[in-house]
C-alpha cells in the first residue's frame, strides 16, 4: 500500500481531510478521487465525473446503491427539495416526511423498517444526515430530522441536472395527486 493510499484510507476512516494531507492526497489518481469542501471541513470523495454518471460508472468496480437504498435516497431528495438547481443543502425534513414520499402507511411496518435501515446506511455514507447538527442518532422515529448529507454537496458535472429534474418531476406528481 503506497503512502497516498494509506493517507487516503485514514482520511476516509476519519471522515475528514487534514490540511497537511492535501498535498499527499493530490498524488492519488485524479480521475477517481478528489478533495472537496463540504460545509466547514474538507473530505475525500469519488471524483465528480463518477457520481451519478451513467457511462463511466458501469466500467468501474464501484459498489452501487441497492434498490431500497436508491429509493430511500430519492425520497430524501424529494422530501428536502427546495426547487434549487442543486439538491445540496436542501431543506430540513423528518423521517415521517421521507416515509410519506414512499407512501407510508401503505408501505407497511416491515418495509418501513427497511427504509429506516437504508437511512442509517445513507447517514453512514454521508449521503443523508440524521438528527440535528451534532446530535448522535441512536433510534430513528418519524420525528427524527433528516437533511441531505455532505457527499451530495460533491455532486457536480453536467448530469446533476438529471437527478434535479427527476426529483422535480416526483415533487410535481405528488402535488398533483394531493
Amino acid at each position, binding site marked *: 500500500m503506497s503512502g497516498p493510499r494509506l493517507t487516503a484510507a485514514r482520511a476516509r476512516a476519519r471522515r475528514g481531510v487534514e490540511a497537511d494531507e492535501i498535498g499527499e492526497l493530490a498524488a492519488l489518481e485524479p480521475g477517481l478521487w478528489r478533495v472537496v469542501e463540504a460545509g466547514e471541513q474538507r473530505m475525500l470523495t469519488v471524483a465528480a465525473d463518477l457520481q451519478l454518471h451513467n457511462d463511466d460508472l458501469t466500467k468501474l468496480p464501484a459498489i452501487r*446503491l441497492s434498490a431500497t437504498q436508491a429509493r430511500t435516497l*430519492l425520497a430524501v*431528495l424529494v422530501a428536502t427539495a427546495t426547487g434549487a438547481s442543486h439538491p445540496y443543502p436542501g431543506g430540513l425534513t423528518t423521517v415521517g416526511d421521507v416515509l410519506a414520499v414512499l407512501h407510508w402507511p401503505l408501505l407497511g411496518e416491515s418495509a418501513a423498517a427497511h427504509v429506516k435501515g437504508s437511512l442509517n446506511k445513507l447517514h453512514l455514507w454521508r449521503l443523508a444526515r440524521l438528527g440535528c447538527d451534532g446530535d448522535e442518532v441512536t433510534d430513528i422515529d418519524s420525528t427524527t430530522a433528516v437533511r441531505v448529507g455532505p457527499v451530495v454537496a460533491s455532486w457536480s458535472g453536467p448530469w446533476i441536472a438529471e437527478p434535479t429534474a427527476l426529483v422535480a*418531476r416526483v415533487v410535481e406528481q405528488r402535488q398533483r395527486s394531493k
Partner: protein
Amino acid sequence: MADKRLDTYLVLLAPVLVRIDGVTEDPADVDLAEAILVAAESADGIGLTRSEIAARAGLNAADPRFAARFDMLARAGALQHLRGDKKHQSRYLPDPVALLAAEILARLSGDHGAEELHSLLVAAADRLEAAFRDDLDAPAPTAEEVAALVAKLSVLLHAYAQRMEAASTAGTYEELTRARTGSSTSRQMAQIERVCRAINRNDSPYGHLFHDANRLLAAGQRFVAASEQLTERLVEVATSGEGRGVLGLADFEQYLHAAISRNLDQLAAVGATIPLETAPPVVHLADLAQAAAELDVAPQVRRVPVPPQADPSLDPRDALAERRRRAEQRAEVRRSWAARLLAEHDDVDVTSHATTWPHAARLLADAMALSRDPVVAMAADIGDPPLVEPGAEVAVRHPLRLRRLPVEPRPVEWLGATGITRDAAR
C-alpha cells in the same frame, strides 16, 4: 536480417531509453519524454502532428528539450512516421511494439518480473507436455531446445534467488521490498515440477536430460527458499520499527492479544485508526430513475373499496314479499277453482283429474290446502282403497272428493304478513 533485428531492438528499447534517458540524468527530461509518448498514444488512430503532440503534452514545440526527446523517439522507431494531409505535414503514431514494451516495463517495475517468470515457466511446461500429445499445431521441441530452455530457466531462477539472498542478508526495508518476487512461490514450484515430470517420464524423448532436470529442480528449490527467507525478513523488519507501512499495523498476534485483553473503548479507538479501503457506494442515475419509476405506480391515497351494486332481486325482504304475493295469488286461484267445481254440486269427485303423477301430487296438495283454508267452506276426502286402471297412464289412484261444508266460514284472525291463519275461536 541484422538490420531488421536492430530495428526491433531499437523499438523495443525506446521506452527504456525514455525512462533511463541515455543522454541525460535530469529527471525533468525523463518526464518530458514520457509526456510525449503518452500524448502520442492519444492519437485515436489517425496520428498527430508534431505540434499537436506538443500541445497535448502541454509543451512548447519550439523548446529544444522537446525537440531532442521527440527526435530521439522518432529515430528509435517508437513514433511511426505517417504522411500527412498536406505536402510538408508529418503525422506520428506510436509503434505497437513500443506500446507493448512500455506495458511490459510497467509490469516489470510493478511486480519485479514475478508474472513474467511465472508465464515463462508455464509456457515451458506446456511446450514440453505438447511432445506427448501428438499435436501437429504445436510440434514437440527437440532435445537440444529443451536442454537450452532448462539451462536458461535454471540460470534465471538462480539469478532471482541470488538477488533475494543478498537482500535478505543485509538489505534495508526498501531493498527487501524491491527484491521481493511475487507473493506465492508454490505456483512457480508447481510449474517447475511439471517441467521435470515431462523430462523424466518413461516414454519421454528427453530422458537423457535427467541431470538438467535435477539442476532445474535445485534452482527452483533455492528460489523458493530464498523467497520464503525474504518474506520472513520483510515481516521482521516491517514490524520492528514504527511507520514501516501497513505490515506494522497488521501483526496478527498483537491484534489477537489486544482483542482479548483490551476494553471496548480502547478497541474502538484502535478501530478508528485502522485504514479501511471501503468507499461509499456511488450513486447511479439509473438507480434513481428506477426508484422514481417504481414510486409512480404506487397508489397515492388509501381508498375504501366501493361496495358492489345491490341487486334488488337478491334482497331477502323483497324475495319474502314476492313469495307471499305468489302464495296469495295461488290461494286465490285455488279458491276460485274450488268455487267453480262446487258451484252446482255439494260433492265433486276429482279422482279423474289426476292424469299424471306431478299433476296428482299438485291436486292433492291443493285439496289439502283448500280443506285447511278458513275462507272457503269445503273439505277434501282422500280415500284409502287404491283404484287400479290398467289402461290409464297412472297405474294406481286413490279416490279424491271435494265436498261443501254445511257451516258458514268461521271468522279468522290473520297473523300479520305471514299468510298463516288461525281460528279465532281457538
